[in-house]
């Protein structure tokens, strides 16, 4: 099953199981079914609870908050995650604040879906990974879609949290298969954390480097892990958390080694990886050979032309190089 189908099934399941669940956004109705077809079939089955909105990201996020405020479960789609900037006030000053600023906890079941990332030639304003701008906001949790996490389960976790969640969906993943395709590696789950190790037990037991990556960057990390293993006999472990913020760093600790690297698609500067590194340093500094390495996209706009876009965005080979450098030091 492809990731997009898994996500679509998760939304069907949510609307099936929860009579208070709504899905709203721009162009989400059938037959169009959303710009990335993730809401396909939903409006045909749940015409009252799948709502198409004007091009008003601020308002549709506010409406989702209003639905959540009155006890419903609201899933809002921002067509391109880049446009979440237009909903920043609703997210930061209303939804996230409301959970706690009224003195007692006000649960809000609300998920804002953000198709994210580049690699499809959509250009500077339709290709960004804006996770970093939402890190550290009390009352707002960040999750990222991953091929190793069933979306139904992730949605249940987000809804159960009772606070607004942003769900980042790397667009590149939509057409990729769920689960693991590379026979060199095996995926296992430890709670919400996906752990990917070489299938060879001796390599898995003592990885040279541990890579932490969100779901959208995981396949590039795997590409690097394959080439490192095949070409340089370097074994790596990949850790993919479902929730980026607040990060459950304790869950990572048993899987870390002396060399740790965070890979993400965000452009450089003020990144999620910086937050991960800080948390890891606080806990296991003594166990590390050096500081946690950060690999991300260049500090640049994301160009449209394919050859230029490739120069800016994080790649498997960039991760490969970074691991080699980390091990050389």
């Amino acid at each position: 099953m492809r990731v997009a189908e898994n996500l679509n099934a998760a939304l069907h399941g949510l609307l099936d199981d929860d009579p208070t669940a709504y899905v709203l956004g721009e162009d989400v109705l059938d037959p169009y079914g959303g710009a990335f077809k993730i809401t396909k079939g939903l409006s045909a089955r749940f015409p009252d609870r799948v709502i198409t909105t004007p091009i008003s990201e601020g308002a549709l996020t506010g409406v989702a908050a209003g639905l959540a405020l009155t006890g419903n479960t609201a899933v809002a789609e921002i067509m391109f995650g880049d446009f979440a900037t237009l909903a920043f006030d609703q997210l930061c000053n209303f939804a996230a604040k409301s959970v706690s600023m009224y003195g007692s906890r006000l649960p809000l079941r609300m998920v804002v879906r953000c198709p994210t990332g580049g690699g499809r030639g959509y250009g500077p304003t339709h290709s960004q990974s804006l996770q970093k701008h939402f890190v550290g906001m009390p009352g707002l949790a960040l999750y990222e879609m991953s091929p190793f996490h069933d979306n139904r389960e992730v949605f249940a976790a987000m809804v159960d949290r009772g606070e607004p969640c942003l769900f980042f969906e790397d667009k590149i993943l939509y057409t990729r298969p769920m689960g693991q395709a590379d026979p060199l590696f095996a995926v296992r789950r430890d709670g919400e954390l996906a752990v990917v190790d070489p299938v060879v037990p001796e390599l898995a037991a003592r990885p040279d480097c541990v890579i932490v990556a969100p779901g959208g960057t995981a396949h590039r990390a795997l590409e690097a892990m394959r080439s490192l293993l095949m070409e340089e006999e370097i074994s790596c472990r990949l850790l993919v958390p479902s929730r980026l913020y607040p990060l459950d760093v304790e869950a990572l600790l048993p899987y870390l080694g002396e060399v740790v690297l965070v890979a993400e698609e965000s452009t450089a500067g003020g990144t999620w990886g910086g937050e991960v590194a800080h948390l890891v340093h606080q806990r296991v500094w003594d166990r590390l050979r050096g500081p946690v390495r950060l690999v991300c996209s260049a500090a640049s706009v994301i160009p449209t032309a394919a050859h230029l876009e490739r120069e800016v965005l994080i790649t498997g080979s960039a991760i490969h190089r970074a691991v080699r450098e980390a091990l050389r030091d």
Partner: protein
Amino acid sequence: MTETLAPALDPDTGRPRLSRLADDDLELLLLIRHFELKLLQLYGRGELNGTTHTCLGQEYVPVALRPLLGAADFVFSNHRGHGHYLARFGDAPGLLAEIMGREGAVCGGVGGSQHIHRDRYLSTGVQGESLPVAAGVAMHLRRTEPGALACVYIGDGTWGEGAVYEALNLAALWRLPLLIVVENNGIAQSTPTAAQMAGTVAGRAAAFGVDHHLVVSGDVNEIRTGLEPLVARVREGRPLVAEFVTHRLGPHSKGDDTRPPEVIRAAEENDWYARYAQDHPEHFHRFDGPVRALVEGVADDVAARPPSRWSPCA
């Protein structure tokens, strides 16, 4: 657009006489007035933290609306919301404790003057932000509790925010039971409306096909009579912008009034408090002193309480 007609003028003063209020309306008006005056006094003495925005001169707006709104209705208020809260709950101690950060605060002292949530009442401090939220709430009400509405108080300055227009569009498009009450006091912080708004509130409502009702009267009974049938229509899914031409008697927050004296004088001349005292002296004085004393008592009681308690990670 409809307009509330002004009543006959008083032959002595040349302005309309205010009609006699029900006792509870007068008491509520006075409660809000003395509450706000007390706040300014407390601020002046340095006994309050942060800032506040009083609704002096505008008290009659939520008082006029009070019986038109029911327990099932949601009320969204703003930075200048003490009157809205008191008209809904009459709870001066809880509100003052919230503003002073004392035990018994409605929101533990976390929200303060402009972030209050209680039952179906919610205020936020960012202009225009609550409108889309209210649209979502109105959508919920229309589906699950037909007949209930969401009421949002905004000011003339709020019309500078795009969120207002996004929400107006949704309200009209989805036929939401949304009542937008505009307290047009002619000034946004320090900027006169004429310097910040092109066109009119009426014209903007009309652009969305949303009904607009202009209230120029300060007479609670008369305002109510005019609004009652319109609010009933809101409940049926016909959104309404009710624009009150009103006057901000006091500063934007505290001691920051840069308006010329004649503008402040005009606000004072329109003040319901002095007008009602003149038009109905016996009724006015029967309540004014006692309500003032009640607020004094509340302030003394609240000031003597221990600080409110709250855990950041709760």
